[in-house]
């Protein structure tokens, strides 16, 4: 156990070192191009936070001044006069215009625009491109990471399931690490929040989002430049799923609580003035709850990446014997905290989803003591 912990620390250290060398490449590039280092770092960070159409591991500038990218291209799928499928290598990382079946496309700030043969992009007064954006269903870097994570989860947990069957209910190998987490999700997240009667129904979803978010958060800490859970589309999809599950499985009492929050405690004519305010608040609450989920996860992961990369960037801005080691140490400490945050955010998302499912599962509204099994017999 101790050994694995030690190797994990080593691993994190190595990852950071990798990031360090990664950033170093950037520095050389900057000097040769004579650009402002700070802007360069800022651009690099914002570029990293975005999804991309190719899986680039790192880039460097060759001796002849040519940009070299190490990585692999991914398929681009556009819906524009039918389905257009081509490799993202045609864009040459946004440097050239891709020509497919007579249509021309250009990659500009991570988005694909339809252009003319020269690739001119027209801007409005706010410097936003006015070109047509075709519907983009490309297999981007984030989609690849979702597939990788999904495959990893499928492999891990089906092998755990098989190990139960093989060893008569005793997990082996990596399952010994994951079983307590599964039990934790069941006993400390699902059961207390949803209740004994209905928690089983939500278990597959809770386990899936927990491990999905956790694994993707952890992938985000690798120097591969992955930022899946810090993407608004991903967190929106996850929160939408929780929202739909909450409201589609809601009991009669749950809906009664939404539209009649005070119950039979006062006559109907007294409730009218209160309900003019209360009911809209309750209905707004339905949407605010999942919205807070999506913003929390997005902002936490985004912020973590920005802080970490900024600290690494500081090393090259300071360029002194004191500042650079200091920011390296800080970056190291922050990345350890980020490991914790990765788990914490997965936990919070799962926990709050379970809490909302718990609200949707309530059987007796307003009278909490009826839920108490000991008091039922009185």
């Amino acid at each position, binding site marked *: 156990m101790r050994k694995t912990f030690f190797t994990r620390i080593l691993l994190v250290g190595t990852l950071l070192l990798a990031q360090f060398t990664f950033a170093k490449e950037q520095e050389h590039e900057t000097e040769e191009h004579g650009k402002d280092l700070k802007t360069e770092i800022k651009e690099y960070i914002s570029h990293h936070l975005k999804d991309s159409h190719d899986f680039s591991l790192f880039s460097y500038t060759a001796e002849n001044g040519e940009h070299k990218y190490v990585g692999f291209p991914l398929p681009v799928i556009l819906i524009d006069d039918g389905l257009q499928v081509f490799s993202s290598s045609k864009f040459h990382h946004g440097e050239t215009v891709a020509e497919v079946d007579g249509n021309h496309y250009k990659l500009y700030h991570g988005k694909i625009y339809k252009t003319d043969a020269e690739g001119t992009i027209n801007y409005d007064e706010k410097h936003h491109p006015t070109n047509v954006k075709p*519907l*983009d269903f490309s297999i981007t870097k984030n989609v690849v990471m979702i597939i990788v994570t999904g495959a990893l989860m499928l492999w891990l947990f089906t092998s755990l*399931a098989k190990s139960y069957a093989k060893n008569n209910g005793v997990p082996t190998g990596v399952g010994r690490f994951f079983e307590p987490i599964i039990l934790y999700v069941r006993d400390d997240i699902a059961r207390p929040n949803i209740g004994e009667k209905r928690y089983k129904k939500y278990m597959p979803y809770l386990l899936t989002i927990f491990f999905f978010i956790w694994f993707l958060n952890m992938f985000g800490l690798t120097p591969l430049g992955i930022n899946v859970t810090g*993407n608004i*589309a*991903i967190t929106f999809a996850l929160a939408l799923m929780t929202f739909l599950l909450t409201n589609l499985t809601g009991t009669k009492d749950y809906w009664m609580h939404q539209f009649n929050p005070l119950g039979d405690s006062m006559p109907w004519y007294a409730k009218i003035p209160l309900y003019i305010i209360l009911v809209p608040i309750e209905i707004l609450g339905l949407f605010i709850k999942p919205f807070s989920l999506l913003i929390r996860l997005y902002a936490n992961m985004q912020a973590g990446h920005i802080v970490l990369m900024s600290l690494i960037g500081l090393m090259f801005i300071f360029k002194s014997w004191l500042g650079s080691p200091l920011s390296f140490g800080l970056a190291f400490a922050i990345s350890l905290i980020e490991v914790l945050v990765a788990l914490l955010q997965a936990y919070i998302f799962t926990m709050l989803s379970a809490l909302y499912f718990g609200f949707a599962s309530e059987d007796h509204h307003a009278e909490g003591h009826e839920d108490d099994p000991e008091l039922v017999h009185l």
Partner: protein
Amino acid sequence: MEKLLEEFSLGLFFWQTVLFGLLLFLLYKFAWKPILKAVNDREEGIKNALDAADAAKKEMQNVTADSEKLLKEARAERDALLKEAREIKEGIVSEAKEQAKVEGDKMIKQAQATIESEKKAAVAEIKAQVANLSLEIAEKVIKEELSDKKKQQKLVDDMLGDIKLN
């Protein structure tokens, strides 16, 4: 907010929803269901085993209590038997003593009666012998007396003197 909306990619949202739904389904079917079932079965097994152990313990206690009860009963029975035996023994002994006493008394009485009758017989015999001896002595004396005339006369005189004609 504008930046967030600009960042939102419909394609990514589409893929995330589709892939996540697929992942959820596959994991549910091939992982979570068997895992949760295995864990549940195991917990149930542990609970059943504990219950069985509890029941066995209770049974054990019952058995111990039963055997203790039996032992107590046996002990009480033994005590009762011993007591009875002692009573019987005492009865027999006292009866025997009584009988012996009665017998003894009877024997003593018999002996006494025998002694009495023997004594009487002896006395009677002594009396008879004394009478015989007296007669013999008297005979001898008379014979002696009558051998001499004078004496004879004297005797007659004495006798006559004794009679004195009352």
